[in-house]
């Protein structure tokens, strides 16, 4: 059983992008998974403090088996994003690629093919593409209405990462289908998918409204395509053509 009162695995100061906050862990070992953004241990929370919801740890135990440090690390993504939403940023479910100082996202649920498309683009054009984050990048809305795509500790099972942050230039909503096809979507038609790709607790109306505001900022900053994939690398070529054409308009 998990409760807000314990177990207690320590308070840590964290820095993610420009954001400074604290984590309150249940398991001391969770800090190891987030070591890249932790800047030191503390004795009391001085600013905003992020902790995994005990209900989420209980749900993890129901679905995946015993929850431990790795579960807490994975689940920490949601309250982290929740905190960021109050500062025009979020954690977004997508693979983030960088090409010529611009960032491109491939968004889809788990198991649809984000990583496979990433790998395909990387192997076909190794000199052109690099990976900012393979699974859940940090997105940050800037005052000039651009959205920056930044690294985060949640890289996915393959640990794809390494490239520096870049301005968002386009999003592919990936799905599987009977043919390989890419179609540019109207912003309103992409709204629900973009909203659902933002990690949020959905705990109350304010949380939903903040996520909606972030989704609107993302949609106003770049085009969105529906990329239907029957087989790879054919669908990866379609994405590449789209990226190349779009770059001419930037």
């Amino acid at each position, binding site marked *: 059983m998990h409760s807000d009162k314990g177990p207690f695995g320590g308070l840590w100061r964290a820095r993610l992008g420009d954001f400074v906050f604290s984590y309150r862990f249940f398991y001391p070992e969770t800090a190891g998974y987030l070591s890249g953004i932790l800047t030191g241990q503390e004795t009391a929370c001085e600013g905003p403090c992020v902790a995994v919801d005990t209900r989420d740890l209980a749900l993890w135990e129901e679905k995946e088996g015993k929850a431990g440090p790795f579960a807490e690390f994975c689940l920490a993504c949601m309250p982290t994003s929740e905190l960021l939403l109050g500062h025009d940023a979020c954690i977004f479910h997508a693979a983030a690629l960088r090409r010529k100082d611009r960032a491109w996202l491939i968004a889809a649920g788990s198991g649809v093919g984000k990583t496979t498309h990433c790998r395909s683009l990387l192997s076909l054009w190794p000199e052109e593409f690099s990976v900012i984050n393979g699974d859940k990048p940090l997105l940050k809305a800037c005052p000039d209405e651009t959205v920056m795509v930044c690294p985060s500790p949640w890289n996915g099972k393959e640990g794809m990462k390494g490239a520096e942050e870049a301005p968002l230039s386009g999003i592919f909503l990936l799905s599987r289908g009977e043919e390989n096809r890419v179609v540019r979507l109207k*912003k*309103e*038609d992409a*709204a*629900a998918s*973009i*909203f*659902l790709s933002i990690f949020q*607790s*959905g*705990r*109350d*109306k304010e*949380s*939903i*409204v903040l996520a*909606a505001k972030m*989704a*609107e900022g993302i*949609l*106003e900053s770049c085009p969105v395509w529906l990329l239907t994939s029957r087989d790879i690398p054919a669908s990866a070529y379609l994405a590449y053509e789209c990226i190349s054409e779009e770059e001419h308009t930037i």
Partner: protein
Amino acid sequence: MTYRIRPGIVLINICGQNLLAATRPVWEQCPRVRKIPRLWAACWKIMEDGKTDQDVIEAFAGLLQKKPEEIRPRFESIFQTLEKEGYLICEDIDSKKETQETIS
């Protein structure tokens, strides 16, 4: 039957698209997000003030200068769909269920 908004559902608008979004406490009662047309969103906004389906029909009847009975079928289908999907609650059915549960 009286339809009311299920507490925990929020109407949002993203780039002109109206969406009903469910807060976590009601994730098991309805899909997390649903696109809705403008007319449905207008109905929802009236109901957000605690009004019922009957109030919505009367409001639109006034706007359209028609009798409530004339426009009721069109609106009934909206309420029935949203109730079936879990975004609205039907108070009569709920009270019947409660009565049955109490009896059993």
